[in-house]
């Protein structure tokens, strides 16, 4: 009886036709996101290999404007981006396989990869915000020292 209740409580939520449709559309768009990201990395490499800076002359004063990134920073960004997009791709692949093939294991693995995707982005956001906060503290300390 208890086992029956447990089974019932587990199966209250299902991936019905509406949920399947939403999941399929999510998978289509995440695949587009991954594809554009990978193509974007190729474009970023091309741009990084092109001339990096141009000088804009302004009323006799040369104002240098950096119009590109260094190759090293581009490669670093691409590595981070590939890591993030790998998990999004895994989610897309497994969730689609799970929904199409009615495989609970694949669907669960897909959701696990989506979780990792959001965890990595969140950790990166925390790191970036920490660096930004440190930068603000350093700037304000420098200003008060003057």
């Amino acid at each position, binding site marked *: 009886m208890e086992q029956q209740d447990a089974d019932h409580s587990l*199966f209250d*939520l*299902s991936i019905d036709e509406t949920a*399947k449709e939403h999941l399929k559309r*999510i998978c289509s*768009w995440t695949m587009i996101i991954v594809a*554009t990201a990978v193509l974007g990395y190729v474009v970023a490499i091309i741009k990084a290999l092109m001339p990096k800076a141009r000088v804009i002359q302004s009323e006799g004063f040369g*104002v240098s404007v950096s119009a590109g990134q260094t190759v090293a920073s581009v490669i670093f960004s691409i590595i981070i981006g590939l890591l993030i997009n790998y998990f999004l791709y895994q989610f897309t692949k497994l969730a689609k396989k799970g929904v199409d093939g009615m495989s609970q294991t694949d669907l669960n693995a897909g*959701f696990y990869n989506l*979780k990792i995707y959001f965890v990595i982005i969140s950790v990166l956001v925390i790191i970036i915000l920490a660096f930004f906060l440190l930068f603000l503290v350093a700037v304000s300390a420098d200003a008060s020292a003057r």
Partner: protein
Amino acid sequence: MEENQSFLELQVDQTAAKNLSDVARWARFLSITGFVCMSLMVIFFVSMQSRLAAAMSQIVPGFSDLNGIGVLLAIIIIAAAVGCLLLYFLFRGSTLIKRGIETKNQEVFNTGLASLKAYFTMYGILAIIVFITNLVSIF
């Protein structure tokens, strides 16, 4: 027969529920952080208007004559509004998915998935726009 059919359907079992709850928790954190950052960015640009105008007029001659700061501010506000809409879908999706799992409400769960779909749709469209802009900037 119907009972047998339901056992053959995909379910939100314990593993899926745990993973989706974690997805919702982190997505909610991201959206709230995003809202705060967007607001701070707009406040920063509004409060630093005059300094920005001076800095920009050094780079772009006649920037202040062209009422450039107003245009720049409008672009920033539009970008922030688009970003906030994207984050709203993420926030709504995460909240409803979590609530749907907790209350075992199929309708709420599906609405959450629909919001997550809207988030990824908008994200995809923006990704395509950014990619095309980047591609055009090469030539």
